[in-house]
């Protein structure tokens, strides 16, 4: 066991899988020699050589497109997009090729690649560095999408992602890259893709979050400690395929659902979760499902970002509102 940050846990997972499986290769802009702008891939080139860990030209379409080709021909590429806001040239490759290859070749060609990308706001970052665009992947059949919120899950999900036969988008909440440490086993272990985690059991209300919002939600719960609200907290961990069973089972028990997300408001992951609750648990609901999200606006630059960013205060406010809701 070692105490690791989320970032170090991903690094360890990569190192371990590269050691075990010679077909794993790692690349991206500045991901080789420098070890990435956040240092997620630090030390890997030195250990595994330039054939397996390398810098790419600045070209996201080339990064993803090459990963697809490599995956088809026997490698297990783990490609890095430096920031999720820059993935769009590569998005074409992800959507029009990676996601469809298995289906259109009726199983002949799979694309066992992982595309990693840091994402999310709250860091007073430059333009295009703060968005939360997971819906754009979750909306595409054929893709898997995971977002860890703890070092333990980060390592286990990365190992599962590398070993997965399908393309996995691995979004990393960069705001909590180094925010805290957790005991992480040294040995190889997997966290199942497609399985949410009940972080805290409760009877009064179901609160669902993922990524950096897990931490904000936990802070909000701390704020409300004396309020006597019995929250069941669920960390989605995987966005696609989403673990509706765990969420709906909880909603049926508590009768109240709150989804916390730093995405823009409309047509996001929260929208789908609430729809499912209405479709499949309507008669159990004691209050209308609620969500705390950003607004339907372009993520503001740092001096206006606080208007958009979901914080513990707003989450606590909505939890109270939902707890006190009476029909």
């Amino acid at each position, binding site marked *: 066991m070692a105490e690791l940050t989320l970032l170090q846990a991903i690094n360890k997972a990569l190192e371990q899988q590269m050691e075990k499986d010679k077909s794993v290769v790692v690349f991206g*802009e*500045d991901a080789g*020699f*420098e070890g990435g*702008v956040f240092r997620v891939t630090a030390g890997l080139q030195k250990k595994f050589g330039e054939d397996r860990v390398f*810098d790419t*030209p*600045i*070209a996201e*379409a*080339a990064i993803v497109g090459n990963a697809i080709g490599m995956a088809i021909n026997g490698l297990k590429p783990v490609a890095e997009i430096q920031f999720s*806001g*820059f993935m*769009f*040239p590569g998005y074409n490759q992800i959507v029009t090729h990676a996601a469809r290859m298995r289906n259109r070749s009726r199983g002949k060609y799979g694309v066992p690649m992982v595309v990693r990308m840091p994402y999310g706001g709250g860091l*007073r*970052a*430059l*333009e*295009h*560095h703060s968005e939360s665009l997971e819906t754009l992947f979750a909306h595409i059949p054929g893709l898997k999408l995971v977002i860890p919120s703890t070092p333990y899950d980060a390592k286990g999900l990365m190992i599962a992602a590398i070993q997965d036969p399908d393309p996995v988008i691995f979004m990393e909440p960069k705001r909590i890259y180094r925010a805290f440490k957790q005991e992480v086993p040294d040995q190889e272990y997997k966290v199942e893709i497609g399985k949410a985690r009940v972080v805290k059991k409760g009877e009064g209300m179901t609160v669902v979050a993922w990524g950096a919002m897990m931490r904000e939600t936990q802070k909000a719960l701390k704020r409300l400690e004396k309020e006597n609200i019995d929250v069941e907290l669920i960390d989605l961990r995987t966005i696609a395929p989403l673990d509706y069973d765990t969420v709906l089972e909880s909603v049926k028990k508590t009768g109240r659902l709150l989804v916390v997300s730093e995405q823009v*408001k*409309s047509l996001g992951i929260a929208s789908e979760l609430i729809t499912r609750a209405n479709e499949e648990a309507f008669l159990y609901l004691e209050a209308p499902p609620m969500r705390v999200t950003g*607004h*339907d*606006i*372009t993520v*503001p*630059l*740092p*001096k*206006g*970002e*606080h*208007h*958009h960013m979901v914080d513990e*205060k*707003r989450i606590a*406010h909505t939890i109270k509102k939902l707890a006190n809701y009476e029909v």
Partner: protein
Amino acid sequence: MILTSFDPLKKEQFQVLDKDGKVVNKDYEPKIDDDTLIHMYKTMSLARVADIKALQYQRQGRMLTFAPVQGQEAAQIGPMAALDKKDWLVPAFREAAAMLYKGVTLEQSYLYWYGNERGSQFDEGVNVLPVNVPIGSQINHASGVAYASKIQKQDAVALAYIGDGGTSHGEFHEGMNFAAVYNAPLITIVQNNQYAISTPRAKQTKSETIAQKAVAYGIPGIQVDGNDVLAMYAVVKEARERALKGDGPTLIEAFTYRLGPHTTSDDPTIYRKDEEVEEWKTKDPLIRFRKYLTNKKLWNKDKEEALQEEYKKLVNDTFKKVEASGLVELDDVFKYNYAEMPRDLQKQKEAYEAYLKESEEN
């Protein structure tokens, strides 16, 4: 003709001033009036002072991440001086000096990097597009701006900047090819500052020069000493004339060096040697141009000292003003997403305002 005299396939590089400010290519020394020369030098100096000060503010925690321009002033001021007011500047994200010359105020420039969208709300008649953070996409915008200028007979060119790393991007190719096919009046300057964050130029392209990529587009390409403001001026002047005649785009590789980090989040000591940086410091574009002006009796030590004092004060005062601007108003983050705010967005804003009021009361 400069453009036909320096073959990028033979690695020929165009230069007017050597690093000591001596004219080495008398035939091509541009005829620029004294006032303009001094204005060019002053703007280069202001960009440099603003850059150094911003780095200090950033280290003090008063400024956010930004992309320093130090070392690349000549590659930006020479070209801008060769443009007309109605010509367009389409920057990437390291063109603070070019933007200043083209009419973006220092306050606006600082405000953008300070994290306020007002920093991209340029004054009327300033034909400059906002900073372009994603790599390479601006080349297509510039091509479109140029095409529009051509068919509307505006008699104006578009000048786009991109970095050496940016030329690896698909959109660089797409934009150059598009502009070439339609003879759009586009000038693309690749500031080859040798590194794309940590990745050296040799890992971006196997081409010997970046300028030689022009050959494949069927347009002129030339490598220029990017630290030589007069060479950069002369070559852009010629490219502009070509473009306005309807002869199409030109690709200019400005061979230069980023003396600072990629952005303030970057530590270049991981991937660059000190000796290399020291070597490039001897080729500083400002020192070279100052020597040239001094030889022409247009500049001297007293003027230099007075200018430095003036600019330090100007930059300090400007930054204080920017700091005093504080946070962005709630209205601002909502009202510019559309020309007219959709009804539901208006409701979202009202709901958020109600929440703010409520949480204030509690």
